[in-house]
């Protein structure tokens, strides 16, 4: 018996998301009185693998094989299936990001394991295995019961947090048998911005809507974000208009994020927008319309002209950072 976590790495490094997954798995492993095993695929240095022990991993299985550098969903599903069998895993945990969403359903079929995606917290009970997740684009919560011996969950990023649980970690090389599968996705080109804080990783997000009037007014948003160490985001019409890149669009049809602080500037707070941000721990809204629905979701609000409020916001942050 064990709890198996699959975590991706980013150019050989783990990040907060990996540590959150391991912390979460460790807590479930405690409920089950068993161990946490982590599977890592790709070139990751020993020291980096060792870090997973800080969050409770007792074994790390590392597939350091050049064949698997690029994500091919079939190849990866084969590897994770074999790891699950070797670790005798009865719970498998992945991130609820693009990679987890691509792999978990395939694994569910391969392992005949019930799947709960985008879970928010620890299982409410182990027998029967009951766990909560958001449904109807965050407008409701469902208590899902998984009825199979092996269970798979994908965890919504930033919903559990990082918890240190130093374990004596053993690192093993894992050599899956890939004779029965070949990669069919051929990657022609990778286009990636590096060095920019990713929206999904950010603890603070500064976001602008149509109330910002035009792309020329984003200087203030960028400045505030830089001061706060935040990522920038926007509402859908803003990205549809081409004022901002599509990757910044948050909401039901864009990215679903749950930062600690979400600052919404000139965003009305349409239900589809809130679907992507309502998991934020604190929402600040600036909008000139006192009846804008964003104020129903917000913790702090200013009814006022964002063009006037934003420069003052920036000045006040500078002042407090200096004090």
């Amino acid at each position, binding site marked *: 018996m064990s709890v198996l976590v699959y975590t991706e790495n*980013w150019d050989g490094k783990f990040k907060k998301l990996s540590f959150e997954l391991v912390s979460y798995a460790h807590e479930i492993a405690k409920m089950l009185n068993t161990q946490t095993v982590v599977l890592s695929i790709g070139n990751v240095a020993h020291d980096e693998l060792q870090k997973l022990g800080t969050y409770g991993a007792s074994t790390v299985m590392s597939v350091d094989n050049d064949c698997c550098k690029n994500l091919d*969903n079939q190849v990866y599903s084969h590897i994770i299936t074999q790891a699950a069998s070797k670790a005798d895993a009865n719970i498998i945990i992945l991130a609820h990001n693009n990679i987890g*969403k*691509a792999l*978990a*359903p*395939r694994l*569910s*079929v*391969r392992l*005949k*394991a*019930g*799947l709960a*995606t985008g879970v928010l917290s620890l299982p409410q009970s182990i027998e029967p295995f009951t766990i*909560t997740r958001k*449904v*109807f684009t*965050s*407008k*409701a*919560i*469902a208590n*899902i*019961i*998984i*009825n*199979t011996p092996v269970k798979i969950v*994908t965890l919504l990023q930033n919903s559990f947090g990082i918890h240190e649980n130093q374990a004596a970690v053993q690192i093993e090389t894992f050599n899956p048998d890939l004779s029965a599968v070949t990669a069919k*996705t*051929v990657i*022609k080109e*990778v*286009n*990636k*911005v590096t060095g920019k804080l*990713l929206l*999904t990783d950010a603890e*603070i997000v500064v976001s602008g809507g149509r109330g910002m009037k035009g792309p020329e007014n984003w200087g203030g948003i960028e400045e505030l974000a830089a001061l706060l160490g935040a990522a920038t985001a926007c509402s859908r019409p803003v990205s549809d208009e081409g004022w901002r890149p*599509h*990757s910044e*669009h948050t909401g039901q*049809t864009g990215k679903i994020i749950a930062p600690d*602080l979400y600052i919404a500037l000139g965003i009305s707070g349409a*239900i*589809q927008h809130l*679907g992507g941000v309502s998991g934020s721990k604190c929402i*600040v809204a600036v909008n000139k319309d006192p009846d804008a629905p964003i*104020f*129903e979701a*917000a913790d*702090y*609000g*200013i009814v*006022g002209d964002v063009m*006037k409020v934003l420069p*003052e*916001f920036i000045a*006040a*942050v500078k002042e407090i950072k200096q004090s």
Partner: protein
Amino acid sequence: MKILICISNVPDTTTKIKFVNNNTTFDKSGVQWIINPWDELALTRVLDLKDAQAGIESVTVMNVGLADAEPTIRKALAIGADKAIRINADPVDSFQVASLLADAIKKDPYDIVLCGIESCDYNGASVGGMLAELLDMPSVSAISFLNIAGGKVELKREIDGGQESIEIATPFVGIVQKGIAKDPRIPNMRGIMMAKTKPLQVLEPSAANTLTSVGSFDLPKAKAACKKIDPDNVKELVRLLHYEAKLI
């Protein structure tokens, strides 16, 4: 090429969500139903490619649902799909949906099967990947671009901080997200008239298992009222965020 788009029939995105029977059943009364937004975008892109003579022979849409899903299915025909199939079942979980779709697809295969990244009712983000595994086909997820030219398929998928351009041979399952098309096609009068005469085949479901069930639903806890700050005192907001919320 024969292309299939799996469409789920979901409540309009502005629907007020309510439950009945002790919070175990979604209350469908008064709900407006739509084609799941990503499925609609996938359909739009495929029809654009068909119009551009990209070598698409037929575009089929398939839904697992009861007869009450037919207006939504007809809308897909009105937008321009050639043919529709409804598998007559009220599914319990994504695995059951995927199994029913897979059984129908095995009997009458397609070159490309497209699904949306998630349906905005149960938000499972599961059916596409499950379907690919059941069909033993490759899958590409988070597709934000699809082109077909000279029999070749080019895709882009979203990765952290960017995109990957991918080539893949058919058959495969594509799981589509935003970006694949800008706005969904709106059916015109001619499309609506034609939809009435297009085939909508109803299949009886095969025997399919479920792996999960929903115990009950809850509504999110009401949020505490928003603390309003005087627009002439923005400093106070920053002070609260620093000292009270301790977030900056």
